[in-house]
C-alpha cells in the first residue's frame, strides 16, 4: 500500500518535471526566437521549396527540418510561431479563469437569483459547439491576435464557471463553513478565507489545461485561416498548409504537429501535477 502511494508520487513528480521542462523549452524559444532561429521565418526562396529534413536525401545543409511550399525554413517558423501560441495561452486563459471563477464562486456561494442568472447564461453557452462559436466570433470581429484572444475568453470562461460553481456548492455545505458563520465571519470573509482555498487546486489545474486549450483554439482558427495574418507563422497555419501538401512534403505537417501535441499534453499534465501539489491533504 505504502509502496503504491510512493510509486504514484514518483510518477507525479516525473510528470511535473517532463511537462515543466518541455514548456520551459517552448518559453525560451519564444523569448529568444531571433537569437535561436537559423533563418528569417518569412524569407521565401522558390529555389528551396519543399526541402526534406536534414537527414534525408536531397536535403540542404542549414535547413534542419526542411522547408515548406514557399521555401521557408520549417524550424525557424516553428520557433517564431511559439510566440503567438504562448501569448494566447498566457493572456486569454488567465482572463477567462478570473471571470469564470469569480462568477462560479458567487453563483455557488450565494445561490438564489445570482445563481439563476449565471446558470442560465452557462446553459446558453453550453448549447453552442465551441469551435463553431469561436469561428463565428472571429469571423465577426475580424482576424488578428486580439480577436483570437477575445474569442477564447468569451467562450471558455464557462469552463471555469461550471467547475468552480460545483466545487463551491460542495464546500458551502461543509461544517467548517457553518463554524465560521457561528463565529461571526462575514460572508465575503468566509468565501475568501474558507471556500476559495478549497477550490483553488481545481482552478489551478483547470487554468493549466485551459492554456493548452487556448493554444489549440488558436491553431484551429489558423487551420481554417481565421487567426492572424497568413504570413506570420503559427502552428495551426503551418499544419493547414502541411495538410494540403501532405503527399509531397509530410514534414511541413509533422513537425509543427509534434510541437503542438507536446505543448498541449504538457499543459494538461502540468495541471494535474500542480493540483496535487496544491492540495495539503495529499502532501
Amino acid at each position: 500500500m505504502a509502496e503504491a502511494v510512493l510509486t504514484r508520487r514518483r510518477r507525479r513528480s516525473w510528470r511535473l518535471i517532463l511537462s515543466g521542462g518541455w514548456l520551459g523549452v517552448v518559453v525560451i524559444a519564444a523569448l529568444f526566437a531571433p537569437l535561436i532561429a537559423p533563418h528569417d521565418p518569412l524569407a521565401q526562396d522558390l529555389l528551396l521549396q519543399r526541402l526534406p529534413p536534414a537527414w534525408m536525401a536531397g536535403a540542404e545543409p542549414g535547413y534542419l527540418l526542411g522547408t515548406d511550399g514557399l521555401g521557408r525554413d520549417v524550424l525557424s517558423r516553428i520557433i517564431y510561431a511559439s510566440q503567438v501560441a504562448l501569448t494566447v495561452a498566457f493572456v486569454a486563459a488567465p482572463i477567462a479563469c478570473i471571470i469564470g471563477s469569480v462568477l462560479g464562486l458567487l453563483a455557488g456561494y450565494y445561490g438564489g437569483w445570482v445563481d439563476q442568472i449565471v446558470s442560465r447564461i452557462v446553459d446558453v453557452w453550453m448549447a453552442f459547439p465551441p469551435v463553431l462559436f469561436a469561428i463565428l466570433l472571429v469571423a465577426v470581429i475580424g482576424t488578428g491576435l486580439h480577436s483570437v484572444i477575445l474569442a477564447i475568453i468569451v467562450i471558455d470562461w464557462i469552463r471555469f464557471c461550471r467547475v468552480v460553481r460545483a466545487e463551491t456548492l460542495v464546500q458551502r455545505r461543509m461544517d467548517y463553513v457553518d463554524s465560521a458563520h457561528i463565529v461571526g465571519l462575514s460572508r465575503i470573509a468566509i468565501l475568501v478565507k474558507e471556500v476559495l482555498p478549497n477550490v483553488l487546486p481545481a482552478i489551478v489545474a483547470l487554468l493549466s489545461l485551459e492554456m493548452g486549450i487556448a493554444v489549440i483554439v488558436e491553431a484551429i482558427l489558423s487551420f481554417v485561416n481565421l487567426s492572424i495574418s497568413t504570413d506570420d507563422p503559427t502552428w495551426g497555419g503551418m499544419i493547414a498548409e502541411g495538410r494540403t501538401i501532405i503527399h509531397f512534403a509530410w514534414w511541413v505537417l509533422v513537425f509543427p504537429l509534434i510541437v503542438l501535441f507536446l505543448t498541449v499534453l504538457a499543459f494538461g499534465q502540468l495541471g494535474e501535477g500542480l493540483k496535487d501539489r496544491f492540495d495539503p491533504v495529499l502532501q
Partner: protein
Amino acid sequence: MTILRAIATRIATTLVTLFGVAIIVFVVIRVAPGNPIAMMLPPGASEEDIARLTALYGLDRSIPEQFVIWLGGVLQGDFGTSISLRQNVLTIVLGRLPATLELSLLALGIAIVLGAALAFVATRWRETPAEAGVDVVNGIALSVPDFLWGLALILTLGVAWPVFEISGRVSPTLDLPFVTQFYLVESLLRLRLDITLNLLDHMIMPAVALALPLAAVIAQLLKASLKETIRQDYVMLARTKGFSESRVILHDAMRNALLPTLTLTGVQLTFLIGGTVIIERIFSYEGLGNLAIDAVINRDLPLIQGIVILFAVLFVGINLAIDLLYAILNPRLRHG
C-alpha cells in the same frame, strides 16, 4: 407530483436556453461589418442591385424587426433561404445532418467500447503495470483534443501506412442507389456491404479521433466505479462460486457500473458532437460542421443561423434526455 413539476421546470429552462441562443446568434452575426449581399454579387454590380437583394433578404430592416420576422418563420419551420447556395436552409441543413449524426454515433460506440475495454483491463489487472499503463493512456487521451488526434491519424494510418481513406464520406465513383442521407444505415438495411465497407473506410479515422477523449473519460469513471463495485458483497459472493475474475467483472460488476457511468458522461456527448465541426473539416467529410465553416466564411447569415440553431436543439435535447434518464435511474431523486 414533484417529479412532474421538476420535468416541467426543466423543459421551460430548455426553451429559455434556445431563445437565448437564437438572440445571441442573431445579434452577433448582424453586428459584423460589411454587407454580405455585396460580397455575393460580382464586382461592379450597381448600388440598385445590391439594395434590391438586401431588401429581398430582409436585411434592410432593424435588427429587432429582422429577429421577429425570422423567429416567426422558424416557428413555422421556415428558416429562410441560403444566400450562397440559394436553397431553402432547412432542406440543406437536414440533408447534411444524417452524415454528422452517423459519424457521431459511430464515434460514441467506439468511445464506449474502448472506454469499457480500458476500464476492464485496469480492473482485471489492478495494481499491476497494466493499470499504470491504462492510467498513462487515459491521461494522454484526456489532455489531447480531437483536432490533434485527427491530424495524427491522417499522418499515420492515412499517409505513412495508408490503411484508411483520409477525405470525404464515400468514394465519389461509387454509385449510390439510396433514398435517404443515412448512407451507413441504409447500406446495412439493403445489405450493400461493399458500400458499408467503403463508408467505414472513410469514417473510421474521424470517428476514432472524436472518440478518444470521450473514451478516456468513460474509462476513468468506469474504472473508479468498477473498483468500488467489485468490493460489494454480491460480487464477492459471485467470486466464491468459482467463476473466473474476468467473468465476475464482466458479468456481475460491469452491468451495474456501466449505465450510471454513461449517464454521468452525458455532457461529454455534446462535446463530441461539437468536435465534428473541426474534424469534418480536417477529413473533408460532407457533414453539418464542414457546411457551417463554409457558411461562416461565405457570410451566409440565414445558413449560419439555421445550423447553429440545429446544433443548439440537438445539444439541449441531449442534455434534457440525459437529465430525465438520470432522474428515472436515480430512485432517491425520483422519490425526493
